[in-house]
C-alpha cells in the first residue's frame, strides 16, 4: 500500500529550513517594520524601472506598459502599508487602482489603435505636433539610424515532422473551379 500523500509533506517538514517555520510562525507571520521596508523598496524599484521605460522607449505600447509597471509598484507600497497598519485600506485602494487601470487600458488601447491607423506606426515621436506650443522639436535622427542587418540566405521556417499515415484525401479540391 503506498504511503498517503501527506507523508511526503511530513518528511519535507522535517528539513531544517521548514522545521524552523512552526517555531517562528508567530514572528514570521508578523508583518513588522522590516517587512514594510522591504515592500516599499520593491515598490520603489518597480516605480523607477517603469519611469526608465517611459522616458527611454519610443513604442507607444511599451510606454503604456511602463506606466502599468509604475502602478504595480504603487500597489505594492499600498498593500505593504495596509498590512503593516493592520487594516483593509491598502487592499481597498489597490482594488480601486486595479479598476481604474482596467479602464485606462481599455481607453488607451483604443486610442493606440486609432493613432496606429492614422500613421501606420506606433512611434511616439511622430506625434510631436500636439505638444505644448513653443517647445523646440525633439531631434530624433531617424536618418542616422543604423540599417537592419539582414540575415543572409533564404528565410527558413521550422519543419514539422509528419507523423502517422497520411489520410486519403481528395487532391486539392479548393483549386477546382466552381461552376
Amino acid at each position, binding site marked *: 500500500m503506498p504511503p498517503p500523500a501527506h507523508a511526503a509533506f511530513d518528511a519535507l517538514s522535517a528539513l531544517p529550513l*521548514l522545521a524552523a517555520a512552526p517555531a517562528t*510562525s508567530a*514572528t514570521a507571520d*508578523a*508583518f*513588522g*517594520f522590516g517587512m514594510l*521596508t*522591504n515592500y*516599499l*523598496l520593491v515598490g*520603489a*524599484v*518597480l*516605480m*523607477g*524601472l517603469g*519611469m*526608465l*521605460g517611459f*522616458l*527611454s522607449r*519610443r*513604442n507607444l*505600447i*511599451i510606454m503604456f*506598459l*511602463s506606466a*502599468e*509597471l509604475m502602478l*504595480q509598484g504603487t*500597489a505594492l507600497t499600498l*498593500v505593504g502599508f495596509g*498590512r*503593516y*497598519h*493592520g487594516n*483593509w485600506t491598502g487592499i*481597498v485602494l489597490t*482594488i*480601486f487602482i*486595479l*479598476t*481604474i*487601470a*482596467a*479602464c485606462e*487600458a*481599455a*481607453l488607451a488601447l483604443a486610442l*493606440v*489603435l486609432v493613432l*496606429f491607423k492614422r500613421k501606420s*506606426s*506606433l*512611434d511616439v515621436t511622430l506625434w510631436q505636433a500636439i505638444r505644448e506650443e513653443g517647445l523646440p522639436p525633439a531631434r530624433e535622427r*531617424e536618418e542616422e*539610424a*543604423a540599417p537592419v*542587418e539582414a540575415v543572409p540566405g533564404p528565410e527558413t521556417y521550422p519543419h514539422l515532422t509528419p507523423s502517422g499515415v497520411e489520410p486519403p484525401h481528395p487532391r486539392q479540391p479548393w483549386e477546382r473551379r466552381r461552376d
Partner: protein
Amino acid sequence: MIPILLTALLGGVGAYLLLPHRLGKARPRAWRAAGGALAALAVLGFALALTPPPVSLATVFFYGFTLLAALGALLMVTSRNPVYSALWFAMVVLSTSGLFLLAGAQFLAAGTIIVYAGAIIVTFLFVIMLAQSEGNALYDRLARAPGRSALVAFAMIAGLVGAILGVSPGPAAPSDAADAPEPLPRMGAWLARVDEVRTPAPHRVVARSVSAQDRMLPEPSERAANGSPPPHMAGLGGTLYTDHLVSVEVAGAVLFVALVGAAAIATPRPPVRPDPARAAALR
C-alpha cells in the same frame, strides 16, 4: 549611502548597455552581456538592502518573487520586441501577485492575476500583433536619450531607497499583537460614528439604510461560531460595501463610461470630408 549609490550606478550602467542604442546601432554581444551582468549584480545588491525576515518558507518565496519582479521589470523595459516586453510584464504581475499573497492579500492577488495577466496582457498582445505584423520596427531599435533616462531613473531609485532605508519605526509602531488585520469594525459602531456627523452626505444616508437592512439579516455563520474576526473575503467585502460603498458605485460607473468610450473611440468611422461647396462658402 555609498553602497546604495554604487548599486544604483551599476544598475544604471547595466540598463544603459541593455537598452537599445540611441541611433539603433547594434552593440557587440560582449557589451550586452556585460550590461546583463552589471544589472544582475545591481539586483543582487538590491536584495542585500532588504531587511532579512526570519527564515521560513515564506522568506524563500519573498526573495524569489522580489528578484523575479526586479529582473522582469528590467527585461521588460529593455527588450526590443514588444511581445517579449508584454510577456515579461506578465511575469512582473505574477511576482507582484505572489508578494500580495505573502502580505495577506489573497483576493487582491487573485484579482491582479485575473485582471492583468488574464485580460490586460492579452489585449496588449492583440494590439501588438495587429499593429506589428511585419516584424521589428525601427522605433523599437531606437531609444530616446537612453543615457539620460537611465541616469534619472536610477538616481530616483537611489533616492527612494536611501529615503526608505533612512526611516526608523516611530514610537507608535504596532506591536506583534496588533499586527494581525483588525477585525472589521462592526456596523453598529460605524453607524454611531456616522450619526455623530450631522452633515447629511449621500453616502451616510445610503449607509444608514443599508445598515437598517443589515440588522434584519442573520449574523454571518463564520463570525457566530466563536466570535473570531471574519475570514479574509468576508472582512474585505464588509469594508468594501460599508466604508467604501460610494467608491464602489463610482468605480462601477467609471468602468461603464470607459467601456462606452473605448467602443466609441475604436469604432472605425468614415473620415470627415467637408462638402466642397460648403468649404468654398466658408472660405
